[in-house]
């Protein structure tokens, strides 16, 4: 089986994914997904908002297929999966709820898009649907486009690092460290306005030691 780690960009949500389910009497259904989350080589997660038919199908028939697209090549990967469980609390839910909320806020829809649950699916098989996109090697992504893709993944990693901070000092360090490791900004400093003055004071630096 192809490892999902070989097409991680397809999980960035740049090209919308779909989930295909079927009821117990074989009636198919499709739903668009804002993003599919790769939990491990063996599991993916989906965030649930308006998933009525998909959810009822998964409870009747746990077999489904999730289509994701590589945003650099438009290659389609069809992930055959089996519904494992639904979570509405816990570490995975909290982590994805933060990401989901950030996306909804950015879209101005936070009042409307409430994360209800996270659906955990076990990966059964992965098929690369080769014929739907031209797979001949070529430089198809502009420098700007590639930069945007890389930045989105890096930004996600920065957010993950930031959420792990336990106190302010760790928060500042983790932001500057993440900017170094993910964006290559090896020299950075964080300054804030000093109360009751027009001066800035440095609260954290990296690369100037």
């Amino acid at each position, binding site marked *: 089986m192809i490892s999902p780690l070989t097409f991680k960009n397809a999980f960035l949500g*740049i*090209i*919308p994914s*779909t989930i*295909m*389910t*079927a009821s*117990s009497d*074989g*009636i*198919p*259904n*499709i*739903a*668009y997904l804002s993003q599919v989350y790769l939990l491990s080589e063996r599991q993916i997660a989906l965030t649930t*908002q*308006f998933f*009525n*038919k998909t959810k009822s199908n998964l409870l009747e*028939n746990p*077999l*489904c*297929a999730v*289509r994701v697209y590589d*945003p*650099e*090549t*438009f290659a*389609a990967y*069809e992930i*055959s999966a089996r519904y494992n469980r639904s979570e509405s609390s816990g570490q995975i839910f909290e982590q994805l709820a933060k990401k989901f909320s950030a996306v909804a806020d950015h879209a101005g829809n936070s009042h*409307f898009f409430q994360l209800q649950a996270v659906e955990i699916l076990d990966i059964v098989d992965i098929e690369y*649907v*080769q*014929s*739907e*996109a*031209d797979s001949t090697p070529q430089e*198809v*992504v*502009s420098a700007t*486009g590639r930069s*945007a893709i890389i930045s989105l993944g890096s930004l996600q990693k920065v957010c993950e690092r930031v959420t792990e901070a336990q106190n302010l000092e760790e928060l500042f360090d983790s932001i500057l460290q993440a900017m170094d490791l993910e964006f290559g900004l090896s020299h950075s400093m964080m300054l804030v306005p000093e109360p009751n003055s027009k001066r800035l004071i440095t609260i954290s630096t990296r690369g100037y030691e």
Partner: protein
Amino acid sequence: MLNQEWSEFLESGVAITLSCCDSELRSKGARCVGAVVGIDRKTVTFYIQKDASARILPILADTQKVAIVASLPTTYKTLQLKGNYVGHREADSRDRVILNRYRDLFFFQTDQAGVPGNVMRRMVSVPAVALDIEVTHLFLSTPGRQAGVAL
């Protein structure tokens, strides 16, 4: 039956995905590369790249059941059709006009939506197979509280 609005919608630059499931209830899908609504507005012809169609044609011949979702990239307005596979044929030169028109409309949409254009233009349309689908049910699938409402 499809009304004028949804007929025009299906023939515009919408992203189209088809799904079916085999007798073991395992789902498989394919990207459609164009659509034409029949005069009766009950039959719709969907085009699928020929090699990709080979993954699903045996299932369609066996079960006939199909779901198709069409979504406009710039607005997320989405329609889901359910119906039965009627038959298929290889797309010919007359179909090429429809396939080319769809590519223009679809890429205009994805460009507007900010998806890298040179990536989307990797989508392969030909050779294609034309699938005739008899539509039995329509559902609004635009994300929101009305998603799933029968039309």
